[in-house]
């Protein structure tokens, strides 16, 4: 399905059209009617949603059980922070550095295990090790990463009279990029490539017999997933102002897995909605009752795994069919 078909589908259903229009209007109006703090929170929520979508390309569409998503998110964050703060390159060049850095690491980490076709449990452990090494690395190499203080401060620049350091401006910037990226992902995954990935996940052997280079396809999906994760991470630093070890932690990996599962493994919108919504809920509920929130989320997560492994979107789709 290409963009034409997408707009066709949108125009076909007035209800979907109305919902999309409503969401767009709300998204555009929100930063104007709320405070700068809430705008900052919304930026974070959008980016974490985007991160969940990126992770889902590997986890949901290719069946690669990765335990290193936070590694790439953090890599993007540190890539941007270190290159702008220590090497004085501009904010935009910092993005290029962050993305290239994560591409290099994605190739290093993913090439051998995916090409050799190691089993899912081994891939999980392999990426787990990468995640732990990355997290430890941010702590011990204080001269490079700033240790537990993190690396800061990154201030987005001013261009053509638009100050990107201003939350509202940065919000629109992030929103625009997210919409473009999401549309790109939607197009990619509803193309033949998405079908191939889906089929590989169903039965890799059969696809291999049919002549598909299943490992190459998976590897490509892995690269896309990692690069998008780090891209979200780099954007996140633009909002947060610094890169800290928590952006590379196992806890963040855990959270993004929760979002993907609750939103729906192998759906496009699901992880975004879950990542966005739960970040907001976590912020408000978490400030009232931190432990209780985490326990509730845990229980919610486990119930989803057992009862609705397809996630919210998958469940709704099934019911409609």
């Amino acid at each position, binding site marked *: 399905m290409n963009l034409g078909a997408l707009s066709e589908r949108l125009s076909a259903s007035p209800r979907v059209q109305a919902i999309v229009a409503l969401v767009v209007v709300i998204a555009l109006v929100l930063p104007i009617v709320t405070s700068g703090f809430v705008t900052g929170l919304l930026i974070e929520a959008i980016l974490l949603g985007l991160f969940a979508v990126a992770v889902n390309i590997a986890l949901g569409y290719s069946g690669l059980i990765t335990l290193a998503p936070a590694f790439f998110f953090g890599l993007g964050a540190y890539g941007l922070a270190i290159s702008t703060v220590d090497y004085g390159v501009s904010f935009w060049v910092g993005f290029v550095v962050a993305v290239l850095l994560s591409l290099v690491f994605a190739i290093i980490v993913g090439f051998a295990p995916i090409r050799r076709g190691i089993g899912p449990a081994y891939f999980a452990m392999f990426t*787990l090790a990468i995640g732990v090494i990355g997290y430890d690395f941010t702590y011990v190499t204080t001269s490079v990463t700033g240790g537990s203080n993190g690396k800061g401060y990154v201030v987005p620049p001013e261009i053509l009279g638009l100050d990107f350091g201003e939350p509202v401006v940065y919000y629109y910037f992030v929103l625009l990029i997210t919409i473009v990226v999401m549309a790109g992902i939607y197009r990619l995954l509803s193309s033949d490539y998405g079908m191939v990935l889906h089929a590989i996940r169903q039965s890799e052997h059969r696809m291999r017999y049919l002549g598909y280079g299943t490992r190459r396809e998976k590897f490509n999906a892995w690269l896309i997933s990692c690069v998008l994760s780090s891209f979200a991470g780099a954007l996140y630093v633009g909002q947060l102002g610094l890169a800290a070890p928590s952006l590379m932690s*196992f806890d963040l990996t855990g959270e993004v897995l929760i979002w993907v599962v609750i939103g729906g493994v192998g759906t496009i919108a699901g992880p975004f909605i879950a990542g966005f919504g739960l970040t907001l809920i976590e912020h408000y509920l978490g400030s009232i009752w931190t432990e209780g929130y985490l326990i509730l989320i845990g229980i919610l997560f486990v119930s989803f795994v057992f009862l609705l492994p397809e996630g919210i979107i998958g469940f709704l789709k099934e019911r409609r069919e």
Partner: protein
Amino acid sequence: MIIFLTASGLTLIFGLIGLINFTHGALFTMSGYVTMTTIQFTGNFWVGLLAGVIVVSLFGLLLERSLIQWLYNEEPLLGFLATFGIGPLILREVMRAYFGGQTYSVPNPIPGSLVVGPVSYPTYRTLVIVIGFAVALGIGLLLSRTRFGLEIYATTADTDTAEILGTDTTRVYTATFVLGIALAALAGGLVSPITAVYPDLGLGFMLIAFLVIIVGGMGSFKGSFVASILAGQIISFGSTVVSPTYATMGVFFIAMIVILFRPTGFYGKTEVLE
């Protein structure tokens, strides 16, 4: 040795059930807390350790019967996600909520050091090593010399045939899971005087243990023993040369290389590969 006790439980569960059990770390921590709490009431470390192992094993049994057993025939992603939700999310946070984030120290039951010639080593740690060897021997004998061990191997090799031939495979699964958890509980209780007890205690040990069972060979009890000793030595010797963090990173790096080029580990069987 603590690594070994954790890893041996994991490898039993992974080798037989094929479950990536992420509840292991949380149950490890839980045993530490139970031990600590019991010591506060009774003042005796050994009673605390025993209570830790018993309570956590019973909890493991409950968990297996209520939730975990439904994961056995599912794809690995689901099993991993479910145990991940139960362990690091729910159990860890419940413990954090109840006991708070602070560190509880546990008094050393046997202070003092053993002095052999020029070398002196804390008595308690020596005892932990002895217990570790005893458990290794015990489990090794259990697996290779008893009917139960035979049933475990039979169930691993071919569940249906084992069932037809009269093995109660459901019971074998349950017993293996609980045995694995009991080993984690023993490790958690034993480590408490050395490291003190805090919510993330088990997580770190579990992560190392996961790599250890791969390096040793998935499902191989002997392999996890050898690999644990190696990892433990690298970490402790590495810590004296460079910082402990670098030593741990080194172990993880070595583990990655092994996963890549020899995914069967030292003693692993090839059929668990795909």
